[in-house]
């Protein structure tokens, strides 16, 4: 287990380093770049040159990367000149809200999808299985924004149950719960379709395995085999899926946050892209990607704990 852990952590570290290089290069390849964004398009070449000198942008790229990396590791993510705040304090304010949104939605999605997939796998090709599968496939074929729009129409316009914006978020607990309902529901539904499809086929595969026959032959009821053996084996692979879908869910939260005006990292990012506040863009992408890598690592460690075969393999 220790070897597996070390190897996986080393991989995660290498991945993080690669992420930082990719993000850094993208940002410095952008036409116009950081200086033009700060000074505006009418700045004189001299002013541009002076600021470039000040910001250290005339040094070779690898040197700039090294300086940036050192700053970043010491917690200095630069300054958001449009919002007039250090980027790190913006991130500390907005990013945890996105984590909460994504975390709650994934938790809900798993708690719905796992029993549903188990049910479907057990009743494979019966009428109820077909109905659920068809519904899930239709939901799966809807982009996140469309899901949000449909939910707004149904649960705000037709039946005024929930507010259609979360812009009052942070005022009081009761307001928050109502405000969060539609954003969380949207992200949950988007994930349920994904997990339940996977869970269903995993349950079907497992039901064909020899250990199921053995357990049944020894007198275990079908329900007991499902609940004890098949559930655990199918959960294993769903745990890895959790890590893999994390980036998609975070992407989805950008859409959900901008539709519902929820003040999280996605909205911060979106607004900063409009004002070209590059330091914020860089910081948010970096922190969010780091969180994704960590999430993946966590899912793999969890996988190693629940499934002993993984540790010895690979």
């Amino acid at each position, binding site marked *: 287990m220790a070897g597996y852990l070390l190897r996986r952590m080393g991989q995660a570290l290498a*991945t993080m380093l*690669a992420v930082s290089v990719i993000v850094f290069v993208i940002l410095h390849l952008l*036409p116009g770049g950081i200086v033009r964004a700060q000074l505006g398009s009418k700045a004189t070449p001299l002013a541009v040159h002076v600021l470039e000198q000040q910001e250290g942008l005339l040094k070779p790229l690898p040197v700039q990367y090294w300086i940036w990396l050192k700053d970043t590791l010491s917690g200095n993510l630069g300054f958001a000149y449009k919002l007039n705040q250090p980027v790190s304090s913006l991130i500390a304010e907005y990013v945890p809200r996105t984590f909460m949104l994504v975390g709650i939605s994934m938790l809900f999605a798993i708690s719905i999808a796992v029993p549903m997939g188990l049910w479907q796998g057990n009743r494979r090709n019966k009428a109820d299985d077909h109905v659920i599968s068809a519904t899930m496939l239709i939901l799966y074929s809807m982009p996140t924004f469309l899901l949000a*729009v449909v939910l707004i129409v149904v649960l705000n316009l037709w039946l005024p149950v929930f507010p259609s914006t979360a812009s009052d978020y942070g005022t009081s607990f009761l307001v928050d719960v109502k405000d969060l309902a539609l954003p969380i529901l949207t992200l949950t539904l988007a994930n349920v379709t994904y997990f339940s499809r996977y869970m269903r086929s995993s349950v079907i595969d497992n039901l064909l395995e020899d250990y199921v026959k053995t357990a049944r032959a020894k007198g275990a009821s079908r329900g007991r085999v499902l609940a004890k053996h098949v559930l655990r084996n199918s959960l294993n692979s769903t745990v890895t899926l959790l890590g893999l879908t994390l*980036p998609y869910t975070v992407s989805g939260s950008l*859409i959900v946050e901008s539709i519902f005006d929820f003040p999280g990292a996605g909205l911060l990012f979106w607004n900063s892209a409009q004002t070209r506040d590059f330091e914020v863009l860089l910081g948010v992408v970096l922190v969010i990607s780091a969180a994704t*890598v960590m999430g*993946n690592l966590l899912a793999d460690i969890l996988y190693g704990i629940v499934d002993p075969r993984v540790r010895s393999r690979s």
Partner: protein
Amino acid sequence: MKVSEQAERRTASKDKEGANVNVRQSSSASALQVFMANKLAVGAVLALLVVAMFSFLGPLLHHTNQTATNLTMENLPPGPQHILGTSPTGKDELGRLMVGGQSTLEVGLAVGLLSTGFGLIWGTIAGYVGGAVDALMMRVVDAALSIPFLFFAVLLAAVITPSVPLIIFVISAVSWLSTARLVRGETLKVRTYDFVAASKGFGTSNRSLITRHIAPNVLGTLIVNGTLKVADAILIFASLGYLGLGVAPPATNWGATLAAGVNNIFNGYWWQLWPAAIMIIVTVLSVNVLGDGLRDVVERRLARS
């Protein structure tokens, strides 16, 4: 006793090989049969043909002006002049759906092909060469996969005005990653097959090993994956359009059409919302069903051979 057992086994395995040969010979014919038997998948192909004809041939029958904004015609409900009403800028909605369909199908297909091609090359090399090269190539894939895609797209679109080719490039730049991972896994699997080891023993060059043995074995899985990539690309394209990062006018896409309608959601202008929504769902659903149908064919073939 032992000898006879061995003999028995040998004949049994010979029988199996014989059966295999028969299956292989008829497999291309039966693949089509398996697919045609799947009524849902056939229906999906027909639906996609209808969407393609609607988008590319429709404008020949239904002439509309999709370039000029006409403020005297804005938000008109459906009527004989405008079958699906008009948009907030006074453009015919039906014509708009046709134009949106063109870019949608172009982006979907191009991304499917590009990302499959590039993923195939990257994954095969990583899986085949192995060692440090493999580790490096896969860390790049891991890293790029960890950056949530929409953040990356918003970043790019903040500085560059998107066009259809550029959007194809941006979506493909992300879409090939999981294909590469899949192909690498498959390559590792195929590498251990006896016939690959055998032809390596005969001195077959690396290049022909890859193109003649490994690639064909990965092909089925790759076609299924590519189909699902098309569906993903259409979803992403619609989302970008919805965020206002779609293609520059006069081109448009269904996401952008829907976004324009969302502003009138509380006015009850349903024709600006649901037709575009239905086009997105029908198209993506059909591609997904087609992919599932193809997967059945591939899996049945693999199970038999």
